[in-house]
């Protein structure tokens, strides 16, 4: 029987090691799997490479890992905190204690999709002629200049869903969807934290956003540690 459900957060993050590359869902405060973030924190992992859109805020999000010095490198489009109360990323970055790969947001999600879709790279017009394309291969196709971008994959993806079933099918809530469906394609281990676990057949087959084949573990938000 296929059953992606795990009973505890410890089970949800079991086997993830220090040194792992982690795709972390969310845009701003929407869609960050806070329970999984805490579980990784409790597992005391170090030396992580984190691929995510934002650099942490005053919420218990990526900033928890940053405070505990768990992150070696951040691949990110917007590492600046908008709310000035959280400057942990800035502190580490300006002290040279964390590596940053800054990627335009659309290129970030497309690179993740590229990795998840088994492709080797793509040409995008975004960034051409800017500092963020510095040193990258370019190519003129149909008279327009493009920059070559390479796929991103990770050991693990941590995402948040609204509901999940035992097959791992996921649906999302509003703007909390953002990177999650793409991240779910691009990691060896995909773990989803769902507001709700539902019975098989409860999710409308036309409305499933992430089919279960992409998901390895689901844990209910608020499950025991």
């Amino acid at each position, binding site marked *: 029987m296929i059953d992606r459900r795990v009973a505890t957060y410890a089970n949800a993050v079991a086997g993830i090691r220090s040194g792992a590359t982690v795709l972390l869902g969310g845009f701003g*405060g929407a869609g960050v799997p806070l329970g999984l973030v805490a579980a990784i924190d409790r597992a005391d992992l170090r030396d992580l490479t984190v691929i995510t859109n934002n650099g942490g805020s005053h919420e218990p999000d990526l900033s928890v890992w940053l405070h505990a010095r768990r992150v070696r490198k951040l691949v990110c489009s917007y590492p600046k905190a908008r709310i000035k109360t959280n400057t942990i990323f800035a502190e580490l970055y300006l002290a040279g204690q964390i590596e940053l790969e800054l990627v335009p947001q659309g290129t970030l999600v497309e690179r993740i999709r590229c990795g998840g879709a088994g492709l080797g790279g793509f040409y995008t017009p975004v960034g051409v002629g800017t500092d963020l394309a510095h040193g990258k291969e370019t190519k003129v196709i149909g008279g327009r200049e493009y920059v070559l971008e390479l796929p991103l994959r990770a050991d693990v993806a941590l995402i948040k869903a609204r509901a999940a079933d035992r097959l791992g099918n996921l649906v999302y809530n509003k703007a909390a969807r953002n990177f999650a469906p793409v991240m779910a394609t691009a990691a060896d281990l995909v773990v989803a934290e769902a507001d709700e676990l539902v019975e098989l057949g409860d999710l409308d087959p036309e409305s499933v956003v992430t089919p279960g084949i992409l998901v390895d573990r689901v844990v209910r938000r608020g499950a025991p540690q």
Partner: protein
Amino acid sequence: MTPLSREDMARRAARDIPDGAFVNLGIGMPDQIPDHIPPGREICLHSENGILHMGPRPPEGEEDWEMINAGKKPVTLLPGGSFFDSGLSFAIMRGGHLDISVLGGFQVSARGDLANWSTGANDGVPAVGGAMDLACGARQIWVLMEHVAKDGAPRIVERCTYPLTAKGVVRRIFTNLAVIDVEADGLVVCEIVPDLSMDRLQDLTGAPLRPAPDLRVLTV
């Protein structure tokens, strides 16, 4: 002469958005445009984080923090709105599906180069977000910015000195002094605030301007 207030700048830009347009509004001043869309026009707002047909901020106490815009502020969804993932959202932006993007700017060059993501100062954390993507794909890119910087330096320049966001993309610039089109052969002033001469406007601008044949007074 009286420069436009920030609110009037947003109002002026809003007037040029036609009925039925699909629009993305950058963070900052362009945020205010929806408040000034002339009555009778239906505009459909896209947000980079995967929303189409955004409505205004909800009443206090009804905020949903899983329903935020690109600026991370709570918004609502209008009937007919929809949600999608970031992959499709940026495909929409890059793929030429937006009619108009209205962006903030630090500098715009005479050839339509845009600098709006970094001042190049090496003393902070860089961040680009969706700025480069937004500046690349919409059918028209408009910029809404003060005509000169706080120190008086022109923001419309021969060549951007700040790091570029994208090359040759800006079509129209709305400032607090003028409305300026970026044409293949240079910058054309379409509207200018009352009691400001073209000569004086040129003094405040770092690239050659020429008046449109039907140069008008900029009023809101």
